[in-house]
């Protein structure tokens, strides 16, 4: 291990700053391909996540020093792993790895050196390492924000700066979040492992939550100038697709992938010419991405084929599939969507789901029926500052010709969102209601 100043160095940041030469660009790309596997493999060897990440970062620093001169090695992944392992051996010799781990580490290193290069290492083992890393980064003892930051950092290979940029927060905030998350993990002595049995089900829930949170932040940004940030959606999709290959027997993993693929298929249609949001029913369906729809439907089928009742993500994917299959809004199977929301609500009762269901009821059985349901949610504490409640209510009131009430609701909704684009859309709707009232 190098000096502490090198250790603290954020390797990925260092790359962006000196991104002059071709070698540096190649190293950055290689890092994003290899880093998760590298950290995961090292974590299994040294048994400690923080040490593993530091070793990986040191190997990256070594690559940044040497590759621009020597050229990129033929097998860069194996080079990085080899370099990191040498340093791990050093650590073991100097007694810097936890006492109880010594023998294990020695054994692992021996086995590792018998292997002719990492890429021939048992694929299954590599897969398990990667899964272990995912479960660790998404550990429920961490806050949601910490899980998201840590996942993007160690599994996405994103720099602290890139994560901060994506979430529109200061770099220091993300850096602190990551440091604190690592400390929490080591203080709680969280073991690097792939959980099994009932624990696994709960832990998997946390993993899926993190992936979908990342997706959603990209799909409808909660703050800032942009309504969508596709790179976050792509990152979440990539993580989901990787997870689906690692544990293909978990229906909800395919469920969340299906949901993301189908929602992402609408990304291009969701934004108007000047960056304004375009809502589902107003979208030009010819712009929906057929490839992602096909992939989404295939993932949903994989979830269904595994048998059993569909979980909440797969059910939401089934709802998205209803939209994807309809060539016009009028062709949408709204009664089926209502039934699917009923099923979601039984599994995970939530006021937000009830609100969505009310929208579907409004479409299937008329705005009065929808409004009746929405009105039962007005005093729901969880929806007190949720901008979509007045937005939905405004929409239903408008359809019923109650323009003045609708206008007030859209204005209230506009005051509740921090997203600039969404505020503009809602204020436009309010103005339309005012105009419609005058025209009457």
């Amino acid at each position: 291990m190098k000096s502490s100043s090198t250790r603290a160095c954020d390797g990925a940041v260092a790359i962006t700053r000196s991104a002059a030469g071709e070698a540096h660009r190649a190293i950055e790309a290689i890092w994003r391909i290899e880093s998760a596997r590298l950290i995961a493999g090292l974590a299994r060897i040294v048994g400690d996540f923080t040490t593993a990440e530091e070793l990986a970062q040191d190997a990256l620093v070594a690559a940044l020093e040497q590759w621009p001169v020597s050229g990129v090695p033929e097998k860069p992944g194996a080079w990085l792993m080899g370099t990191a392992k040498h340093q791990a051996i050093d650590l073991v010799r100097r007694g810097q790895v936890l006492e109880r781990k010594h023998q294990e580490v020695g054994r692992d290193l021996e086995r590792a050196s018998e292997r002719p290069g990492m890429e021939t290492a048992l694929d299954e083992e590599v897969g398990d390492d990667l899964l272990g890393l995912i479960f660790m980064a998404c550990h429920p003892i961490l806050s949601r924000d910490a899980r998201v930051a840590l996942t993007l950092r160690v599994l996405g290979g994103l720099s602290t700066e890139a994560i901060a940029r994506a979430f529109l927060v200061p770099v220091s905030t993300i850096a602190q979040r990551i440091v604190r998350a690592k400390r929490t993990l080591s203080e709680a002595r969280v073991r690097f492992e792939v959980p099994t049995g009932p624990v696994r089900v709960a832990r998997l829930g946390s993993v899926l939550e993190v992936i979908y949170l990342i997706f959603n932040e990209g799909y409808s940004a909660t703050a800032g100038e942009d309504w969508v940030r596709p790179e976050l959606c792509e990152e979440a999709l990539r993580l989901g697709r990787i997870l689906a290959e690692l544990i293909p027997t978990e229906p909800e993993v395919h469920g969340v992938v299906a949901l993301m693929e189908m929602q992402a298929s609408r990304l291009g249609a969701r934004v108007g010419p000047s960056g304004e949001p375009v809502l589902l029913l107003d979208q030009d369906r010819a712009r929906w991405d057929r490839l992602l729809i096909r992939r989404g439907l295939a993932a949903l089928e994989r979830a269904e084929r595994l048998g059993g009742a569909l979980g909440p993500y797969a059910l939401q994917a089934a709802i998205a599939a209803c939209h994807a299959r309809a060539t016009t809004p009028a062709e949408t199977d709204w009664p089926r969507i209502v039934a699917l929301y009923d099923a979601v609500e039984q599994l995970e009762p939530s006021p937000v789901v009830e609100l969505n269901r009310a929208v579907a009821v409004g479409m299937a059985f008329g705005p009065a029926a929808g409004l009746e349901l929405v009105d039962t949610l007005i005093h729901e504490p969880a929806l007190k500052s949720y901008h979509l409640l007045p937005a939905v209510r405004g929409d239903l009131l408008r359809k019923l010709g109650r323009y003045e009430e609708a206008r007030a609701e859209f204005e209230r909704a506009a005051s509740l969102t921090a997203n600039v684009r969404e505020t503009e859309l809602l204020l436009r709707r309010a103005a339309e209601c005012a105009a419609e009232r005058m025209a009457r």
Partner: protein
Amino acid sequence: MRVLILAKEGEQTEAAAPPTPAAMAEYQKFNEDLVKAGVVLEAGRLHPSSQARRVRFDGKKRSVIDGPFAETKELVAGYWLWQVRSMDEALEWLKRAPYEGGTFEVREVFEYEGM
């Protein structure tokens, strides 16, 4: 971002004997690695260009031309559609492909126009 990888081969390799089982296994392993990394969106291998047809547009006129075609230096033999984070990442993946010959062209696909 999305990139389209076009596998370009000469006339000879395009119509060459099927690959050996060992080469096939290597290729499959590479493809699996790509799928496991969440990179592949779509992949396909094309029938030889001798079976292909072309439609040429000239004003209102359309003429259909049957293969094989005269220019056979760089025929597209297959394609991949990849989801990657940069052109460099695509190149790093591509360099790992177990091919002994041929040229592969990497093209970025337009996405999210107007965003």
